[in-house]
């Protein structure tokens, strides 16, 4: 997409907004429609958009594959971590009520962290799938 200046400029303008919208969906998920899954997909879409316009090698310099792979694991660990902490504080697994001094705040904090974990892992998985497929075609053509 080297020749398409309009696309490149628009992409540069849009990507920050897409990312912010992703964060909004993530953190407003407690109160309105949204949550970790949707937010993860939106964030991943922003990165995939970047890759479509600027090419995969550029994107992988911004977000290397090992970072994406770490995201997969960190999200799940955050999720289970919340569960383990709630067990340590005397509740059942994923019982958020015990996390803070009162049950309502605890539930808020718990679902906030769990959804964050979901968001990170979903974004990671989407990007991993994209990297896998996009990278595969590249290596095949470069062999020819």
């Amino acid at each position: 997409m080297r020749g398409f200046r309009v696309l490149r400029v628009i992409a540069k303008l849009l990507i920050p907004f897409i990312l912010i919208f992703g964060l909004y969906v993530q953190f407003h998920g407690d109160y309105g429609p949204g949550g970790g899954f949707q937010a993860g997909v939106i964030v991943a879409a922003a990165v995939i958009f970047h890759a479509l316009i600027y090419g995969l090698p550029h994107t992988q310099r911004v977000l290397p594959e090992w970072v994406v792979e770490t995201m997969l694991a960190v999200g799940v660990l955050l999720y289970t971590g919340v569960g383990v902490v709630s067990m340590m504080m005397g509740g059942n697994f994923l019982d958020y009520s015990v996390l803070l001094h009162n049950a309502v705040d605890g539930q808020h904090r718990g679902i906030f962290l769990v959804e964050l974990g979901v968001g990170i892992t979903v974004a990671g998985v989407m990007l991993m799938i994209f990297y896998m497929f996009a990278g595969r075609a590249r290596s095949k053509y470069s062999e020819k």
Partner: protein
Amino acid sequence: MIESNLPALQVILPLIAAPLCVLLRRSSLTWLVAWSASWATAAVSIAILLKVLGSGTISYAFGGWAPPWGIEYRIDPLNAFVLVLVSVVAALIVPYARRSLQAEIRSRQHYLFWTAYQICLTGLLGVTITGDAFNVFVFLEISSLATYILIAYGQDRRALVASYQYLIMGTIGATFIVIGVGLLYLMTGTLNLDDMARRIANMPLYRPELAAMAFLTVGISLKLALFPLHLWLPNAYAYAPSVSTAFLSATATKVAVYLLMRFSYTVFGRSGIFESLPFEEMLIALSLAAMFLASTVAIFQDDVKRMFAYSSIAQIGYMTLGIGLANASGLTGAIVHMFNHAVAKGAIFLLLGCVALRIGQPLMSQLTGLAKRMPLTAAGLVVGGLSLIGIPGTVGFVSKWYLVMAAVEKGWWWLAALVVISSLLAVLYVWRLIEVVYFREPSEKLNEATEAPISMLIPAWLFVFACIYFGLDTSTTVGTAAIAAETLLESLP
């Protein structure tokens, strides 16, 4: 804290180990993580079994939401037994896997293999432990997706096709299961299995329940490879890495058998469905077909791993036969055969992995004279084989004894005779192996081979010893299985 949270720990220990493996990446480190997680999981499962046998059913409310609204983990003697089976097998295979993986999988992929292994374990344990119908589906998908990966790691390129085949079949099965669960939810308004059973018992039998039962049975049968739905299994087992084959053959199908018991007895036990449908007769007919046809096909297989894969289909037939017989001895036989077959097949596939380490995946003709080069491996294979036949003194005899007893109790002498005759088919394929391994000179391929390393032989031989030990001292296995069968039969009218 730990004691009250045992049911949660059972599932989340491997679930935490899986992302840790991704983060650590180094082959040896991930192996250590998998090792510790699997053994901790096994210890937890044994603690749970002892607790259940001592003080009755455990109910664990996930997230503190009381059942039937929240997700409940409900453990009675039956699933406690299956939990022990799955987690102990998984734990024993991990030490074995180190050498085997080095030979069969590129080292930079080891961490991904261990991740898939732990996720598969999470899924299998989750299916077994949960008391929530939708949770069953979710965990089943988790374990299935990980299973496809475990199979696709095989060296043979056909592993990919086999994995893909299983993916298609497995997805169809999972879809059927979720349709069945959906219909049940529609009719009862609950997802909690216990609550569901109570509500079904108190309402007339509507058509959607029949449909739900049909969808669930077909879906689960796909997963457990009941006879006409078994086509994915031989290739998947034959071309998967040795470690995956041993793990899956010993655990995955057993969990599906458990699920069939859970739905057909606990959930539908009092629905009156069995009075209006010939469910038991159908199950017995299909089991007999599996026992005879799959064993016959096994006799003509040239690839040894594939031969034992077909034998697995036949052995699964014995388990479903026990479910179909629906009396105390039959169910005891089915439950104890889950354990016994896991032990025997685990031993056989682990030992075939030892052979594969030296000469690659063996064809029957390449195994000639194995006993002269790898005597311990050969001896273990024989014990495992005898156990498949059901020779007295091995575990296979115990379960077949109970199945024959169950048939006799019902007055079905012909069925008892058929069980014995089908064992003769097992004699044929096992004898073929013994004849090749013991009574011929070593093949060219085997000439250079030496005995497998001790780190692989010890876990494999632990399975072999278990074949003999639990064949002689049946009090633990049969005792627990009898209690489990009793709890299942309590749910019948």
